[in-house]
């Protein structure tokens, strides 16, 4: 009590249990109102920011000139993706209702924790782009898989099972075609494996579903104006 031994005379009701309960209740309800208000004022802005985050992430692997549908709404829920990689969304990019590309998230255990990647594939299954979304690899060694640190991840562009032999999908140390980093082999190996399992998923998926096979080849240099939806 010494902390409160101010010479201020405190009213007698201060010591009643009822007053203290009411004080706590009053403070809690005031705070609840404030937080509700804050949530109402910010939730729209936060939702917009999160959508923009997703679009930015997708833009890295699916250039927005390629499609003209709303990527965030044209999604499929694939249980197999959920089982394999923990994220069930398959983003489908369409140009005038024709499917031109797909994107999905793959994960793989790296050197220290999970590496999360997003892969963009065109309708034939060749890679448009791979980017790291999150990882906890060693800074300065394993983090060269980030596009901001190194161009290594661009080495996957345009590759597919069709144009690259199955045994080339490995780091050079394992007899494949991808560079490992000095001092870090496990990280690039994990990324290569993640991409391979993503491509595996896609080839299963496209053989099981007839729709990925295009009815008509879609020219990328279309003369139609690009109607972007972002």
């Amino acid at each position: 009590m010494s902390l409160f031994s101010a010479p201020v005379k405190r009213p007698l009701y201060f010591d009643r249990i009822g007053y203290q309960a009411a004080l706590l209740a009053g403070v809690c309800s005031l705070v609840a109102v404030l937080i509700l208000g804050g949530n109402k004022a910010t939730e729209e802005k936060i939702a917009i920011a999160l959508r923009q985050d997703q679009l930015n992430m997708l833009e890295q692997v699916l250039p927005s000139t390629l499609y003209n549908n709303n990527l965030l709404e044209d999604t499929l829920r694939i249980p197999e993706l959920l089982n394999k990689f923990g994220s069930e969304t398959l983003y489908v990019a369409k140009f005038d209702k024709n499917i031109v590309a797909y994107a999905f998230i793959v994960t793989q255990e790296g050197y220290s924790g999970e590496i999360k990647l997003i892969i963009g594939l065109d309708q034939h299954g060749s890679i448009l782009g791979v980017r790291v979304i999150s990882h906890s690899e060693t800074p300065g060694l394993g983090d060269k898989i980030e596009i901001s640190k190194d161009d290594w991840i661009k080495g996957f562009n345009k590759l597919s099972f069709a144009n690259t032999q199955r045994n080339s999908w490995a780091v050079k140390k394992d007899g494949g075609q991808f560079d490992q980093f000095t001092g870090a082999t496990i990280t690039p190996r994990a990324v290569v494996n993640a991409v391979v399992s993503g491509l595996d998923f896609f080839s299963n998926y496209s053989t099981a579903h007839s729709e990925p096979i295009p009815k008509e080849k879609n020219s990328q240099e279309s003369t139609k104006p690009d109607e972007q939806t972002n």
Partner: protein
Amino acid sequence: MNKPTDSPSYPSIFAEGLWSNNIAMSQMLALCPLLAVTTSATNGLGMGLATLVVMVSANFVASILRHIITPQVRIPVFIVLIASIVTLVDMWLNALMHELYKVLGLFIPLIVTNCAILGRVESFASKKNTLPAIADALAMGLGFIWVLVVIGGAREILGSGTLFAHASLLLGSNFEWMELTILSDYQGILLLVLPPGGFLMLGFLLSLKRLIEKIITARTLKALNHQQPDKLIAELS
């Protein structure tokens, strides 16, 4: 011991907050966020600013409500108040400075558990008038910011060769001039970016502070040497 009603002067409030009773360097509080976010000067600055906002609001509210809060329930009341202020800061930071939020997001909720804030509310704001309470929060918050920025800056320069990288995310595009590359093509001392680097830097900074204080004490002693012994004793005690 001061009487609770005594209000220290503003210069002494700021001297305490910035140096002699600095949260991180003297009270040794708030070390968890300090060690965790100071991988760059910008992160440190962002965390420091968020803490400063929470501190000022918490001290302000606690000081206003000090006459209706009873000693028996003061701790739960203060914790509820601090937690809700942190929640509001978290929401607004997410809405208005989303890029920075993605960097700091994990650490903002941790401000609730920052004992320094409850400490200032409990030991200062709940007994003082509103203005000194705000001044105290500003002083303590600024003291925390400079420690965060110095440790963050030192780790960033030695660890990655830059200073204030991504500062424009925090302060707006007008502040791009702050983003410096001190050492280009620099491989960096990996250790300093990793968690042990935080401990090392804090240790160096603490010993530097002790050293400076030692020099100051030695100088005052020398100056006092030819004066009355009772004054010397008063200075020492």
